[in-house]
């Protein structure tokens, strides 16, 4: 059914359709509307057979999900940013134990300085934690990916993180075609755990493993993610059969067939990039976009297949690997090993900075003129940075860089001379 709803509401409703049995969450912007929505569904009785646990921290949220999932319940939680970092130990534990928990991450920057706005620093920090990571481009896809996520997680016994841009998606009202219960029931079978805490057949879960088997255990976790490379497209195909919609999959190429330049990105910014690409295509430029939906497992071959004929690849990413540059870029370069083409890393949208069409046009113009550096910070004010660098040279006690820059920007009052 078509509805004009908030992204968070669409996700909450989609989760409810998946018949979760335990939901545990701790509030953090911009995830709040999702868990508020689910709480209301449970409390009103609309979502029956589900326990909603108001936990005291994200660490507890993931831990409750671990207990619930190990006891054979379909478990869900959601978080963002600081909350994701606060639960990291349990995040690794959940994947190590092979528990098919589904978690939404409403992508948000990581402090300090504290910042509630969108970028991908939070989930990128967890790229190697053993969870599958899917990135939604639109609210429709966010809703759909959650339904696919449970299926994927339970088939593989691996947790899945659905990443959706905080505010940009979570708080945006968009048209979403909401699936109905019959469709979801037909698509998603009841959770049949591979191992379960059951007094009728007692087992010990989570025992210690030493060097004699640890490598093999880790390899098998990797192997499962490699299996997911096959399973993710299959699950998307099945989804299309029941819901009549093309959603999910590993990657989403757009106008890349003859493209000389391909922009690679994840999440909601793909929409803006596609608009820019359309405009440039009209002007005759051979340019396309490659959206990565599955960042873990990383679809090496699919990405290589799309990019191998391009002459330039511009990777636009909403996270910064401090001391290196780009995280997505690093992965993409790995997929392109042996292929020579021009590549640029563009760090954009950090802490919620808008990524505008104007800026993207300028960026692609520079690229076309071959003036783009290898590592670019989109719309960064080099002047401001320079002033702060000077300050730190001149005085030992130069103070907080963030505060100094805000003064220079004029957001807070200037220091008395």
């Amino acid at each position, binding site marked *: 059914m078509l509805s004009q709803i908030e992204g968070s509401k669409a996700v909450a409703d989609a989760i409810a359709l998946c018949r979760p049995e335990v939901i545990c969450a701790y509030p953090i912007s911009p995830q709040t509307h999702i868990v508020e929505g689910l709480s209301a569904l449970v409390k009103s009785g609309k979502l029956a057979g*589900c326990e909603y*646990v108001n936990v*005291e*921290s994200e660490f507890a949220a993931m*831990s409750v999900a671990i*207990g*619930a999932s190990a006891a054979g319940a379909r478990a869900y939680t959601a978080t963002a940013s600081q909350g994701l970092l606060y639960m990291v130990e349990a995040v690794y534990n959940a994947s190590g134990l092979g528990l098919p928990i589904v978690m939404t991450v409403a992508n948000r920057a990581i402090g300090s300085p504290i910042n509630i706005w969108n970028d991908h620093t939070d989930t990128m920090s967890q790229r190697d934690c053993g969870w599958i990571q899917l990135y939604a481009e639109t609210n429709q896809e966010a809703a759909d990916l959650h339904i696919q996520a449970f299926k994927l997680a339970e088939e593989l016994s691996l947790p899945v993180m659905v990443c959706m841009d905080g505010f940009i998606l979570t708080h945006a009202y968009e048209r979403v075609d909401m699936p109905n219960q019959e469709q979801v029931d037909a698509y998603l079978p009841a959770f049949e755990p591979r191992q379960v805490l059951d007094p009728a057949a007692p087992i*010990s879960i989570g025992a210690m493993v030493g060097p004699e088997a640890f490598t093999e255990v880790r390899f098998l976790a990797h192997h499962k993610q490699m299996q997911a490379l096959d399973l993710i497209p299959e699950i998307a195909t099945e989804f299309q059969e029941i819901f009549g919609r093309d959603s999910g999959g590993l990657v989403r190429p757009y106008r890349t067939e003859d493209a000389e330049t391909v922009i690679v990105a994840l999440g909601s910014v793909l929409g803006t990039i596609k608009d820019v690409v359309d405009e440039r295509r009209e002007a005759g430029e051979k340019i396309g976009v490659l959206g990565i939906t599955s960042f873990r497992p990383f679809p090496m071959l699919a990405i290589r297949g799309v990019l191998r004929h391009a002459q330039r690849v511009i990777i636009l990413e909403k996270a910064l690997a401090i001391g290196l540059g780009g995280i997505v870029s690093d992965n993409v370069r790995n997929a392109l090993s042996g292929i020579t083409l021009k590549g640029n890393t563009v760090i954009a949208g950090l802490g919620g900075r808008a990524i505008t069409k104007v800026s993207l046009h300028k960026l692609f113009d520079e690229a076309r003129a071959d003036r783009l550096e290898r590592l670019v910070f989109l719309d960064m004010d080099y002047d401001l940075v320079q002033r702060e660098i000077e300050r730190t040279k001149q005085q030992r006690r130069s103070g907080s860089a963030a505060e100094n820059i805000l003064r220079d920007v004029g957001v807070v009052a200037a220091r008395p001379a």
Partner: protein
Amino acid sequence: MPYQPIKFYQTGSFVVGNRLLDQNERSVQSDTERLNSLTSGHRACQGCGEALGARYALDAVAKATGGRMIAANATGCLEVFSTPFPETSWRIPWIHSLFGNAPAVATGIAAAMHAKGRDDIRVVGQGGDGGTIDIGFGCLSGMFERNDDVLYICYDNEAYMNTGVQRSGATPPAARTATTQAVGPNPGNVFGQGKDMPRIAMAHEIPYVATATVAELRDLEAKVERAMSFRGARYIHVFVPCPLGWGSSSNDTIKLARLVKETGLFPVFEAEHGEVTAVSKIRRRIPVEEYLRPQRRYAHLFGEHGHPETIERIQALADRNIARYALLDDLPDSLKPPGSAVGRQVRWQSEDLSEQTSAMAILTETTGAH
């Protein structure tokens, strides 16, 4: 039929032999049908109080639930010695996730059982003192506050034993650990720190809180049984000597657990909904020195370069407990609140409880400065 009267004091342990009791009053461990939830083959040290306490407590849960139980364990000795992969000593469904999250994992299991309409399956969370009162404190308090249907058992051996005997928030003053060495002007752990978890648990007004020691195992079983008669969050704090960490003899585990109670250093009581409902009285009061002396973690307090003033401060802690929980039937004047007649002479009753003897040495000591 000739009838031989048995004096309970004969054994020196106050323990009533099972054979003297009705079948239904006998201990769970005396039942040949007991579950052996933590069975043989584990790697605990000889005389490990934690292994003993866990076996009794969990078998009592198993009995109360007809075996319909699931346990969530924090990282620590109990977890490590019971599950050296691929072996396990657990005959119950058991999960270890992390050091600091056992109460929350237990909550998750309980939530799952509730969602599935399996409220007959009961959940136990457990961990050492570190996993419970330090790193697991947040999760534990949250579990209490929500009154989740979980029995949480803390096995308190007063330090981080699994990592090599470092100080925890349950390490008592003056005790030597690997991070509170017996050096400097105030050797061992400092005074005025640490938390009193049973009282903190009570402050959550949860249905049931109890303390116990591995000296009185039938008492522990009875408390577990009582705990299982409630729904909601319940907490049992078990005092479990650790021969390795304390530098005590393996065969002194029960003795030390008894002495700690008889000194007043570890009050044994029950509380319901935030109110103390029962207290195990001290039967024969003994000075703390007798409890401290057999443990090498307190060795620096004794001998030529000893610290008698520190022993006195520890005695004061025991006295405070005695007064607070009314652990003695006749509170000596010295322990009565200020204003009442203060007598300096206190009669100590002492006995070496490790020997199975009824002989009692009665000695007189003076409280106050040596």
